[in-house]
């Protein structure tokens, strides 16, 4: 018998707590990627996460590093206070699209333009999950939600907001990228982007944000497989993947 060789293990930075995310949700994958990067960069005991209000508020129990829960949308301001108090610590926010792109727009824009040395993981699934499927600022045209029951109408409800494109216009950010986790190849690319975003903080280069296109099978009313296909067929058409800003030396 050939000798067995371990090629994968679950990162110890993820807690063993039972997750309460829905089947098919990609928070689990993104949590793992973030933890792997922090572990590989040897920042486990030097990191504090600021969690938002939304589905991922539940993440207060899912990480083994220190955790601070912020008010809705305010995570970048909370992270600013933490980083200014403790410049040598790794501070990152983990925010959904309602949190970051609607109620917290001012906080993320100003943290970005100040060039705060923080990292933001922005999970965009185009809908409010925790509150039961309301229209988000990122909901695409025609998508039916609890508060756009006839489908998002661009005349009545306006256009979906592209945060990466907006933020990359500012001078403060060192790294702005959009990735997806709908295929294994894209998961690998997402991890690389997350690593760059933490490296930007470690190397004192500026603000860094990775927007990760995600699913919400429960509130989209789709099974997990069709949800992943929807990212490929619909979401990515409006939210193109790529690096929007990456300063020299990163």
């Amino acid at each position, binding site marked *: 018998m050939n000798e067995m060789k371990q090629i994968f293990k679950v990162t110890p930075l993820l807690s063993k707590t039972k997750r309460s995310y829905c089947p098919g949700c990609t928070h689990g994958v993104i949590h793992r990627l973030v933890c792997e990067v922090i572990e590989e960069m040897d920042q*486990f*005991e*030097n*990191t*504090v996460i*600021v969690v938002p209000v939304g589905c991922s*508020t539940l993440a*207060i129990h899912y*990480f*083994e*590093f*220190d*955790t*601070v*829960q*912020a*008010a809705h949308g*305010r995570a970048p*301001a*909370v*992270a*600013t*206070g*933490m*980083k*200014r*108090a*403790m410049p040598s*610590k790794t501070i990152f926010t983990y925010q959904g699209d309602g949190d970051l792109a609607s109620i917290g727009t*001012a*906080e993320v*824009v*100003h943290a970005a333009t*100040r060039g705060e040395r923080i990292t933001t993981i922005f999970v965009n699934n185009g809908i409010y999950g925790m509150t039961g499927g309301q229209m988000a600022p990122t909901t695409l045209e025609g998508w039916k939600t609890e508060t756009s029951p006839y489908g998002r109408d661009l005349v009545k409800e306006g256009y979906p907001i592209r945060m990466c494109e907006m933020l990359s216009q500012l001078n403060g950010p060192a790294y702005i990228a959009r990735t997806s986790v709908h295929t294994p190849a894209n998961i690998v690319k997402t991890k690389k982007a997350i690593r760059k975003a933490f490296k930007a903080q470690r190397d004192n280069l500026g603000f860094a944000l990775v927007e990760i296109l995600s699913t919400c099978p429960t509130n989209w009313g789709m099974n997990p497989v069709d949800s992943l296909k929807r990212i490929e067929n619909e979401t990515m058409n409006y939210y193109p993947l790529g690096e929007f800003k990456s300063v020299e030396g990163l």
Partner: protein
Amino acid sequence: MGDKILMKGAEVIGEAAVKAGCRLFFGYPITPQNEAPAYMAKRLPEVGGTFVQAESEVAAINMLYGASAAGYRVMTSSSSPGISLMMEGISYCAGSELPVVIVNVMRGGPGLGGIGPSQSDYFQSTKGGGHGDYKMITLAPTNLQEQADLMKTAFDLADQYRIPVMVLSDGLLGQIMEAVEFTFDVDPASLPHKDWAADGRLNREKHLINSLDLDLDGLEHHNEKLQARYRTIEEKETLCEDYHTDDAKVCIVAYGTTARIAKTAVEMLREEGYKVGLFRPITLWPFPVENLKKAVNNPVTESFYVFELNAGQMLEDVQLVVNGQKPIRFFGRMGGNVPSPDEFVKKIKEIY
């Protein structure tokens, strides 16, 4: 230390905070307290501290939340409309048991109101202000020396009880100049390490700073714990001043700017033979209930007169203590108007 320095009220707030060991200030411009952040913007870099002008008061209070979660002394200063914007964050600080110091240099409201001195945020600061069952220690200085001293008290109480503390100043105490002596100079490095802070879990278990609990019993238990702490604060931390209350036929109750005017009125009336005294709460929450009860039970005291720069807010706390046993009268000015001692003298003479 030891020398008296002539300073403006808003700058006293800043220097006292530095001397109380605060090295982090986050704020947003609003009149009449702009000299406080301006002072800190200049002063903090001299002592290795950090000043950040936030994009809003909403962001500023959340920066306090973050810096406090990291275990550091931190403060902001604002005025009434800005304090309203901070109420969400203050509620979160209360829920997450984070010590923060907030200075409110009150101006007249409601809405944008004006920029003159006011005391119309008494309810907001002493009764909670934001959502949920919480309390905020509220300290009301009457002159700049006390404004300096209470800054240290504010940081000490905030740390001791892991609670937001408000220093309730006003447009007059923010803008006047008086001689001040700083009797303390705290080295931040000498402050005890906060063993609950989320500052990276090196060699210890994970720390969580949080106000969420979806378990009903868990959240009720958390509330009971906070309430028990509030009862301890009510029992131990009241501050007040009695001025000629022993033989007072009429006892004035006033705080802050109003109390300093009332004190002059008491002196003027006493010169004419009127037996008038002043009871001055320094902590507005916890309200000095037991001390005021002494005045209520004083057989020579026939009635109370509450003076405020509002329509009658502390009046309700006085009513709760007096509880119908003696008459209470009220006189208040609003909109940023400050009464003269003569106005108080006239009011007292009308009923004496």
